[in-house]
């Protein structure tokens, strides 16, 4: 597994070297920061990658990170202690509880969207849906703002994408997440269906057809970017970095620790992708929409989440990657404190939990409290804008930066305030 980290180091050095050669004119302020950090300065290094463990459907805060044991709203859910005093999780998250010193919890998330599609958009982009503009997801913003760092494979990846994977919005489709399935299988569409010889011959054929089309369209055809995109796709197909998706290369014990599930393998692949310099990986665990039979269904998913999340944090830490990786665990909203008539919980955007870990985040902290009776608003409410401002800050992007979107309109990447308490 060493080769991967080697590639990664080499890339950083290459990148810095190249940056030096080209002069500093094109460097973003962040690249400066990276460059100086690499020189061994004792400044805080911002995270360079972001891993989003996306719990689609709306996980129940009460059955995960914000239990209220022995209350009516718990409806029987039991709490367990964590490695941090006075912080409890719901039963089922035993392994993650040991990692609480690395985790920061927001228990007072509030959003204005209680519909799945609108909620997903809001949580992934930091903005409510707006018919006049499409906002980029946090991963797309990171790819846009942070340097490229010599990665041949897509820098924005969505593993096990559900219905609304992360998109580039006004930054362009080029910033959409690359979608791929269970890492136990080959990466989607990266292997030619023909023999190598035939494949190369097909490219020669293509040259002939392209030349015919280029006649009389000189200068115009380049504006399509078709051939360039094709070349980059070919480069990706032959890239060594594709091996980052191959979790079978990891020792069996580690694979077992992440859990023998598509989501567990997705998290392991995410770590390997971060190692080669991928900026954002989204791994989705779908099915949290438990309007019926809440406790049993949530528990089934918690049993998948617990080993994967805990192993991921431990693994990142042991490889000295945790400091440069921001881990976010979130869904589009939480679930109602009051159980419904069929043992389910419904949509609840008025006080739910998000867990953060890694680069730039202070572990062991908790922000906000929800009402044990499920009636009052949470204390210290955190808006989706605040969450995104915090994430941006953690990866070293100025959350106030103004960006010029198409139609000449200026927009910020976030409309909230960073949570100073959670940032290092």
């Amino acid at each position, binding site marked *: 597994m060493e080769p991967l980290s080697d590639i990664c180091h080499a890339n950083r050095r290459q990148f810095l070297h190249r940056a030096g050669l080209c002069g500093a004119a094109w460097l973003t302020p962040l690249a400066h920061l990276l460059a100086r950090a690499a020189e061994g300065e004792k400044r805080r290094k911002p995270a360079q990658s972001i891993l989003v463990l996306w719990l689609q459907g709306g996980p129940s805060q009460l059955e995960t990170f914000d239990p209220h044991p022995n209350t009516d709203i718990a409806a029987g859910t039991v709490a367990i202690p964590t490695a941090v005093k006075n912080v409890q999780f719901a039963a089922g998250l035993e392994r993650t509880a040991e990692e609480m010193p690395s985790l920061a919890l927001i228990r007072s998330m509030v959003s204005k969207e209680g519909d799945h599609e609108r909620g997903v958009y809001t949580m992934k982009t930091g903005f409510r849906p707006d018919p006049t503009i499409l906002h980029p997801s946090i991963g797309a913003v990171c790819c846009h703002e942070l340097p490229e760092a010599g990665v041949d494979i897509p820098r924005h990846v969505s593993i096990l994408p559900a219905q609304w994977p992360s998109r580039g919005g006004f930054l362009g489709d080029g910033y959409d997440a690359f979608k791929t399935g269970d890492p136990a299988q080959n990466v989607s569409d990266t292997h030619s269906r023909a023999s190598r010889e035939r494949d190369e011959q097909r490219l020669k*054929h293509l040259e002939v057809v392209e030349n015919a089309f280029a006649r009389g369209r000189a200068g115009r055809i380049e504006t399509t970017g078709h051939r360039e995109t094709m070349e980059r796709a070919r480069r990706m197909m032959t890239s060594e970095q594709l091996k980052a998706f191959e979790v079978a290369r990891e020792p069996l014990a580690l694979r077992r620790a992440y859990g023998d599930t598509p989501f567990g393998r997705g998290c392991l692949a995410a770590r390997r992708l971060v190692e080669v310099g991928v900026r954002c990986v989204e791994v989705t665990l779908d099915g949290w929409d438990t309007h019926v039979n809440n406790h049993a269904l949530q528990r089934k998913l918690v049993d998948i989440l617990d080993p994967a999340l805990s192993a991921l944090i431990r693994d990142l830490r042991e490889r000295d990657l945790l400091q440069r990786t921001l881990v976010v665990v979130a869904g589009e909203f939480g679930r109602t404190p009051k159980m419904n008539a069929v043992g389910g919980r419904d949509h609840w955007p008025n006080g739910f939990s998000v867990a953060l870990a890694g680069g730039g985040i202070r572990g062991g902290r908790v922000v906000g409290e929800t009402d044990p009776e499920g009636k009052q608003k949470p204390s210290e409410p955190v808006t989706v804008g605040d969450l995104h401002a915090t994430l941006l800050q953690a990866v070293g992007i100025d959350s106030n930066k103004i960006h010029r979107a198409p139609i000449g309109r200026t927009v910020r990447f976030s409309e909230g305030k960073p949570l100073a308490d959670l940032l290092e």
Partner: protein
Amino acid sequence: MGRRDLFFWTLIGVGAFALVSGLLSSSRTNSAAHFDGKAYEAPDFVAIVGRVDASFRRDWTAGHVAAAPRADDLLVARRLALGLMGTIPSLEEIRSFESLPRDGRLSWWIERILHDLRFTDNFAERFARAFVGTEEGPFIFYRRRRFVAWLAEQFAANRPYDAMVRDLIASEGLWTDKPAVNFLSVTVQADNNNQPDPIRLAGRTARAFLGLRLDCAQCHNHPYAEWKQSDFQGLAAFFGQTHLGFTGIYDGSGEYRVKARGSDEMREVAPRVPFAAELLPEDGSRRRRLAAWITEANNPYFARAAVNRVWALLFGRPLVEPVDNLETDGPIPPVLDLLADDFAAHGFDVRHLVRVIASTEVFRLDSAADHPLHETEEKAWAVFPLARLRPDQVVGGIQQAASVAALNAESHLFFRLIRHGQRHDFVQRYGDTGEDEFDGRGGTIPQRLLMMNGDLLREKINDSPLNAGRQISWMAADDAQAVEAAYLTVLTRRPTPEESRYFLRFLAESKLNRAQCFEDIFWTLLNATEFSWNH
């Protein structure tokens, strides 16, 4: 055991019978016989096309712009199929087309498309995106598929566009029973007591029907245009009495309120239109009055917005960009007003508008020329724009390229269902464009990977008796004819002499078998820039 076997074989037998009867029964009529070209010869039709052509020519002369030559008829036929039906012409259709006399065969093709269900379905989906977007919307109160089906019915009946829009704005009833009200109920939100949202409706109304981005004035006065925040609020107030109850959408009482500036107090806002107040009728429900004002023939923006959208669908690029904002910095091109006036004068007849635009000189210009082409030529419409195909056009093209016969409503339900599933999967992976379909975005790496290595393409080019590749390689008299048929099927053109020579040599010298050779030729044509771009 006997009974189960019997049951099984009966089932298979019935299935096979249904399949075969479906395959054989489709009587493919050559509608050339029924073609009525009168619409294209009417004096006012010839006049409006002439005025549009003259307007562009004046621009070219004034700007010293040399226009591209006229495009080949087949290329124009391809544009029409992509723009109006979201797919490419089939080999079968190309053969019918070429069997007709040169004069008037493009008009025949336009008429044939305008009466094809693929046209109504495509236009319904495109306009639905402008009217309600792509979101799934509130599960209980919104039925997008019903809405799109209703739009398709309107286009199929060639209902006047103004009448359609009046239904959208002013209908009452249940979303399942009166599909037009889905335009209103898509904005219903739980945090708004399950009531329609006047703000979203006002924004949508202004953009979709008037081509004005008044919703930017929702938060602040508009930086370029003259719109004020109060204009937007006045428009929203027309939806202030729109409610949702047991009987669906209805008009009731109440007033639209906004927060007064600098305080938390709410103040009432009266309905007010942002311009041309004299066109607003006095009587009727608020929504009826608004609908009448918007669709009034003298409202300058209504027809312009529709023309700009239909133009964009045909060219892949709107006359004024972006498609829902007619008030960008530049002046309104005179052609937009010519076409808008003609559209209004012809009772907002969508088919008439399509016929006019598709008959103009600029629509039939080549996308290539012997002289160098720059941005000046592009801007002056002196050359046909290169526009990236939408995902639905790409998948429609792949599916059609794999079949010699047209994949229309006449094909068997079984195959239509399979095609529908394939389309869905493909678009999901390719990445849907969403609501804004004309923003000139480039392609992405995952799209190229999907085209080079994806499942659908492989299924469509491999050696199967259902695929065009096999059929062509079997039935063509010789290699030259087979290569030509492959080009016509995928790129709607004949190979150049160089291309022809190249592939004939490949077929003669390759160690691969013939089926593999054609698989490779189809792969090549489908992966070319030319296939993925409208040109």
